[in-house]
């Protein structure tokens, strides 16, 4: 039956025709439909997403990559899942906080409409409870760092009784899931310590032991800005508890760009220095990498290759294209130069 369908559909795939009727039914592509957008705070919102047929589910604490078309261009970002895997309606949720100038986060929080079909990847990540769930937990979070922890609190509500959560936000109104967190704290299921940094300042890790007397007996999971994670890591190192710490770092959304940089050709495992004016195609060939090429003037698209990480600049327009881990952005190597460290899949 499948073989016949392929013969009928060629050169397209049968799934291309299925997509015409129902984008969520595809067996080839995992997509999701936004079925609801719930504002959380002034700058964050939860998206309720109905996943496609091939969704394999997730473990609390994991994240998914979401691909959304903004002004015609598909952009991928990773967000922690904030829903329980056992959600009765089978939907999943992600909760997004806007970043200043953040193209995708602003779009998802303020502009996306229900009914929009978005691209999804299967859930991934190891910031999960795993085997250590029997031990008591300490969660230290800030800002949107609460999102994977919320996923765990919702997904493992019984296992996490007795946990402590120290959460930082500028004010009480900026606490994402504030009402729900205070609710479960009031029921006595967890202890919640809120730090409102506008008035109280940032968390000083040296105070952790005073805030959580049984600190040494707990698994410690932290998620938030890099500065906070680094300081916690350093402090736990000095008091000999570093082995208890697991962190989830949100990837920096901003890629440092400049003129030129080291180009890593991932398949051939070759590093080469690219200056800001030399096409990556020339740099690669010079370094002995087998580069696909064509017209060498940007018109034939015979040299198109994947940028996996880093930044490149279009030598014709000056436009910078960036990619972060997990991205596969196709670029024309004959008219692109390194604009910072970058990885090319060749």
């Amino acid at each position, binding site marked *: 039956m499948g073989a*016949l369908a392929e*013969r*009928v559909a*060629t*050169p*397209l795939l049968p799934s*291309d*025709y299925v997509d*015409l009727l129902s984008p969520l039914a595809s067996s080839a*592509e995992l997509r999701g439909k936004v079925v609801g957008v719930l504002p959380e705070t002034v700058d964050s919102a939860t998206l309720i997403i109905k996943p496609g047929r091939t969704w394999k589910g997730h473990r609390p604490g994991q994240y998914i990559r979401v691909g959304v*078309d903004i*002004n*015609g*261009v*598909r*952009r991928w970002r990773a967000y922690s899942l904030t829903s329980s895997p056992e959600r009765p309606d089978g939907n999943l949720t992600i909760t997004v906080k806007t970043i200043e100038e953040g193209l995708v986060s602003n779009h998802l929080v303020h502009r996306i409409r229900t009914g929009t079909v978005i691209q999804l990847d299967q859930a991934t990540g190891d910031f999960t409870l795993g085997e250590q769930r029997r031990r008591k937990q300490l969660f230290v979070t800030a800002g949107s760092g609460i999102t994977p922890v919320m996923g765990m609190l919702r997904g493992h509500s019984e296992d996490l009784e007795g946990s402590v959560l120290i959460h930082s936000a500028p004010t009480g109104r900026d606490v994402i899931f504030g009402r729900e967190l205070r609710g479960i704290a009031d029921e006595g299921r967890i202890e919640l310590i809120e730090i409102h940094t506008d008035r109280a300042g940032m968390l000083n890790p040296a105070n952790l032991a005073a805030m959580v007397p049984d600190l040494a007996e707990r698994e410690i999971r932290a998620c938030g800005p890099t500065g906070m994670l680094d300081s916690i890591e350093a402090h736990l190192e000095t008091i000999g508890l570093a082995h208890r710490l697991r962190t989830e770092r949100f990837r920096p959304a901003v890629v440092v760009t400049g003129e030129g940089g080291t180009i890593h050709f991932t398949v051939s495992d070759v590093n080469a220095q690219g200056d800001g004016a030399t096409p990556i195609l020339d740099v690669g060939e010079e370094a002995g990498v087998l580069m696909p090429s*064509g*017209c060498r*003037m*940007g*018109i*034939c*698209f*015979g040299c*198109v290759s994947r940028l996996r990480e880093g930044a490149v600049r279009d030598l*014709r*327009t000056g*436009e910078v294209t960036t990619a972060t881990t997990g991205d596969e*952005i*196709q670029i*024309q190597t004959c008219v692109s130069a390194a604009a910072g460290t970058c990885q090319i899949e060749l």
Partner: protein
Amino acid sequence: MTAIQKDPDNPIAHLSREDIEQIGRELDAIRQEVLDTRGEEDAAYIRGLIDTQRKLELGSRGVLLFSLFPPAWLVGTAGLTVAKILENMEIGHNVMHGQWDWMRDPKIHSTTWEWDNASPADLWKHSHNEIHHTYTNVIGKDHDLGYGIMRVDEDQRWVPFYLGQPAWNLINAFLFEYSIAAYDLQLKKNWKGRKENPEFQAKAKQVMKKIRTQMTKDYVVHPALSGPSAPTTLAANLTANLVRNLWTHSVIMCGHFPEGVATFEKKSIDGETHDDWYVRQMLGAANIKGSPAMHVMTGNLSFQIEHHLFPDLPSNRYQEISPKVRDIFERYDLPYAEGSLPGQVASAWKKVIRLSLPDDTLGKAKSLLGFGRKKKEADIHEIRPERLEARAA
């Protein structure tokens, strides 16, 4: 037309280096304007078109299940023909050009697209995007010039083989998608020594496989699905493919063969700058005037000049930039080749017939018959009527 450098009336002789550089800057600015405004509407255009095309194909094939009934045959065949033309021209050709790569949608991307055509996408992309668009109309480099079987320029030396070219071209039109596949394989060049050429063998195998799956779909599977309507569905598929061949052949001929399109000598592109390349593209292509529906059905190759200047801009934008491009032609006194579809097709055919004979046979015949025109005048008039008109205006 003869190669521009040999032309006693070289249309770019009046351009200084500064002029050419300024033309380059102005064209870059037009390109940048499109890039700056490229976005959601363009994405919606191509997605909508792909959606429409697929539904039209699906619907037409559905109707053809009952093609035993003549009205169903007519409607289904017409729909399928239009769907197949859209798929090859406005969608396939342009997606494979990378015009939609900027959307970063792997489903609508030059690296993944496969089209409903005998020629496999990657072979076609090489011969078309790389060779033809880089070396447009350079004699000896651009194989599109006469497809290697026809003499379409005075500078191609006449041999008796060319006497048959009106016939070759007609056969070519009927079998166009297979000619394209043969051409992408450079069959003529590679035929001798094919046995010792593993690269050719591999590509030939790839083409044969593509042709087989295409033929199985159109001439076996879909007819078989039609049950009692099998013979009529087979005829419908044959008709749709044939009409598409004739249509695309005509459109492609209009792009570079009509009178008034310039050709270039091989050595003239040594050390060519991007600005020189722009000027070569300006003179090496011809447009077709017509309705919006015609533009879509040609894949906007009716804006062949704009397409050759900016092969990677989304095709739905060519019409919009056309007046700006035309303005540059006018300010720099360059001939903007353009005509109606029947006019351009006739002009291209006329050239194919004229050049099938040794040079000036028609002129000599005319003098012998006592038409009394001086040779020089007759030649110029035959070669480039548009320019003379432009000069006069």
